[in-house]
């Protein structure tokens, strides 16, 4: 089959139909699907970090640490979550009415900036948590073991995050390269 035959067959393709009220609801009533997912992630992370700090304060004598150390963690995590929401909104708002090559280049630049900031702020928030654990502790071999385990979890998280962004960026760059002679 050549592309001409395919074209003829596709002209008869059955397409799903949305009525006007559904289209209207998509435009006005339902939040953007990507931002919906990000909002969910922010809520889950905020709850998880909140619960974690509460647990640490009540179960692990963290109340003996100065308040500013706890506040530092809360601040670092809050800044990261706020950046997540704002950053995704910014990338989603990239104009799509320009020719493809131009839009892709713009999206790539914006996504790259966001990815760098994302990884940096994520690292800083995890470093703040790590500092919180280390602060004022009398280290024993068991505590060293726990710290190493936490560090490994954090590093793995960062590596997964990094590879996700690299994959997205590589995909965009390859689309741009494919269109530029």
């Amino acid at each position: 089959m050549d592309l001409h035959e395919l074209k003829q067959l596709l002209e008869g393709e059955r397409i799903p139909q949305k009525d006007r009220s559904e289209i209207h609801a998509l435009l006005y009533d339902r939040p953007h699907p990507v931002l919906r997912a990000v909002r969910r992630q922010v809520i889950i992370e905020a709850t998880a970090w909140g619960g974690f700090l509460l647990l640490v304060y009540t179960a692990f004598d963290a109340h003996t640490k100065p308040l500013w150390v706890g506040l530092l963690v809360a601040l670092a995590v809050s800044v990261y979550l706020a950046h997540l929401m704002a950053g995704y909104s910014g990338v989603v708002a990239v104009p799509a009415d320009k020719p493809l090559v131009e839009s892709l280049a713009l999206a790539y630049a914006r996504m790259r900036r966001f990815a760098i900031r994302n990884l940096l702020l994520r690292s800083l928030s995890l470093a703040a948590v790590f500092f919180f654990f280390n602060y004022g502790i009398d280290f024993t071999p068991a505590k060293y073991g726990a710290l190493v385990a936490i560090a490994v979890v954090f590093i793995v998280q960062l590596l997964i995050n990094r590879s996700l962004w690299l994959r997205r960026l590589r995909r965009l760059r390859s689309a741009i390269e494919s269109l530029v002679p």
Partner: protein
Amino acid sequence: MDAARFSALIDQHQAVIWRVCRLYCSHVEDREDLFQEIALKLWQSRASFRGDAKFSTWMYRVALNTAITSLRRRRPDLRYPGDVPDLAVEPPDDGMADRYEKLSSAIRLLDDAEKALIMLYLEGMSYAEMAEALGITENYIGVKLSRIKDKLKTIINR
């Protein structure tokens, strides 16, 4: 353009959006999300529709831009042989149905930009319209199409 008129235009040309969703997403729920993303982007970009081009051409440009730059989760393509677009007209024979399936699967293996180009070609756009939508020269459109056709042949014959 007011919301009611815009919804009516989207309704009239929604096949364009569905085709882009089908090309870039294999899962039904992902297609629904991408449909909404494209519809929202069209609404945000409505001021850029000048009226001197066809509405469907402008829609293709915005829809393809959105599909490729979207931050949505991308799941692996899990379509299986036999899972082909629903055709209103049955292919005249089994051989043709088989060739159709092979070609459709091969198109799904192209990269994002190649898919965009082949889609515009299948929509019957002229080289000039494609060049305008993609931002590359007409000559290069010809070169790219020829390479994509070769690539499709290689994929099908391997």
